[in-house]
C-alpha cells in the first residue's frame, strides 16, 4: 500500500479547536484605519459586481461569522440607495411564528411583526429585532466601513458582536436563487448580533451596548 496514502489516512488526535474569533475580534475591536485590498472571496466578488463596489478600492477582509452573519471590513462602502426601512410584510404574531421552526423571542412591550423571506422582524419603540435560522439565509454580510467599531460581547450566554459608529450595509444571498441582494440601510446606527441554537438574532436601535444587552436579556420566547 502506498505510504503517502497511509500517512494521509492516519487519524491524528488534534486538541479541540478553540474558538479564536471572540478574542481576535476584541483585540481588533477599535476604529479601522485603512483597509487594503484583501483576498478575493467568491461571494464578495459576486456582491461587488452586483453592488458596483469600485473593485480597486473596496478592501474587504473576511473577519468573522456569527450564525448567519458575516462581518466584513470595507474601505469603501457600496453605494446602495438609501430607502426607508424595509421590514417586510406586516403579519400577526401567530402568522410570523408559524413561519419559523423555532420559538420567536419577543419583547415585553407591544410590537409589530413583519416577515421578510425567512427573516422575522419585530418592531417596538425604537428597536427592531430580526431573527432567522442561519441555514435559511446562507449568509448575511454586514459591511462595516472605516470609523466603525466591532466588539465581541456576551449576549444571553452566547458570543455576540456589537457594531457601532458607522453606517453599515446588509447584503444577503437569497437561498432559492443564490441571488445576492443589498438591503437598504434599515436603521442607521449600532447593531447587536448574536447566535443561539442555530438562530441568528440582530437587534437594531439600541444606543449603547449596555442598552442592547439589557433589551436582549429581557427577550422571551412566548
Amino acid at each position, binding site marked *: *500500500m502506498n*505510504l*503517502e*496514502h*497511509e*500517512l*494521509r*489516512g*492516519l*487519524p*491524528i*488526535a*488534534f*486538541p479541540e*479547536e*478553540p*474558538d*479564536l*474569533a471572540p*478574542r*481576535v475580534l476584541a*483585540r*481588533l475591536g477599535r476604529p479601522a484605519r*485603512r*483597509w*487594503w*485590498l*484583501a*483576498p*478575493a472571496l467568491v461571494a464578495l466578488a459576486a456582491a461587488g459586481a452586483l453592488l458596483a463596489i469600485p473593485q480597486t478600492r473596496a*478592501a474587504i*477582509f*473576511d*473577519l*468573522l*461569522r456569527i450564525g448567519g452573519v458575516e462581518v466584513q471590513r470595507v474601505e469603501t462602502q457600496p453605494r446602495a440607495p438609501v430607502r426607508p426601512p424595509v421590514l417586510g410584510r406586516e403579519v400577526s404574531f401567530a402568522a410570523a411564528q408559524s413561519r419559523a421552526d423555532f420559538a420567536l423571542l419577543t419583547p415585553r412591550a407591544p410590537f409589530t411583526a413583519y416577515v421578510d423571506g425567512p427573516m422575522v422582524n419585530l418592531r417596538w419603540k425604537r428597536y427592531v429585532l430580526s431573527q432567522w435560522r442561519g441555514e435559511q439565509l446562507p449568509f448575511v454580510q454586514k459591511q462595516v466601513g472605516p470609523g466603525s467599531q466591532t466588539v465581541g460581547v456576551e449576549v444571553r450566554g452566547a458570543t455576540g458582536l456589537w457594531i457601532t459608529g458607522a453606517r453599515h450595509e446588509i447584503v444577503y444571498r437569497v437561498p432559492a436563487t443564490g441571488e445576492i441582494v443589498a438591503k437598504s440601510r434599515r436603521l442607521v446606527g449600532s447593531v447587536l448580533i448574536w447566535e443561539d441554537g442555530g438562530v441568528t438574532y440582530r437587534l437594531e436601535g439600541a444606543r449603547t451596548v449596555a442598552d442592547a444587552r439589557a433589551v436582549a436579556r429581557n427577550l422571551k420566547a412566548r
Partner: protein
Amino acid sequence: MRAHQGIAFRTAFLIARDPSDAEEAAQDGFVKAYRALRRFRRGAPFRPWLLQIVANEARNRRRSAGRRGNLALRLADEARPGDAVPSPEAALLSDERRAELLAAVEGLREEERLVVSCRFFLGLSEDETAQTLGIKLGTVKSRTARALAHLRAEVER
C-alpha cells in the same frame, strides 16, 4: 476567519506541540495578518500567507519555551459504531500499523517531520507547505522524498 481558524490552530499545534501555545500563536497570527493586510500581495492565495505568519508565531513560542516535542502526537480513538465511515485508507490500516507509522514520523528529524505533517496531516499542497514553513519548493520535495524513504525503511523492516 472561521474558515481558516481550524487549519491555523492545527498548524500551530504541529509546530508548538502545546495546545495553549498553539492557541496563542494562532490568535496572534490572525491579529498580525489582519494588521499586515497591506503587505498582502493582491491575487496571491490567502491561506499559506496566513499560515506562514501563524507558523512563525508557533516557532517563536516553542523556541522561547525551550521545549522540544514535549507532547507527542496521538492517534484518535477508534471510530465508534454510528460514527462517520472511515476513509478507505483508514479502514485498511490496522491499529498496530498506524501506531508504528506515527511513531516513525515522530522519530524523523524535525525538518522532515514538519514537511510530512504539513503535507499529509494538514493536507497542504507542496507550494503551501513551502510558504508555511518558509522554505523553497525544491526543499519541500527533497525533504518529503527523504522522509518517505526513512519511514519506509522504518516500517517495512
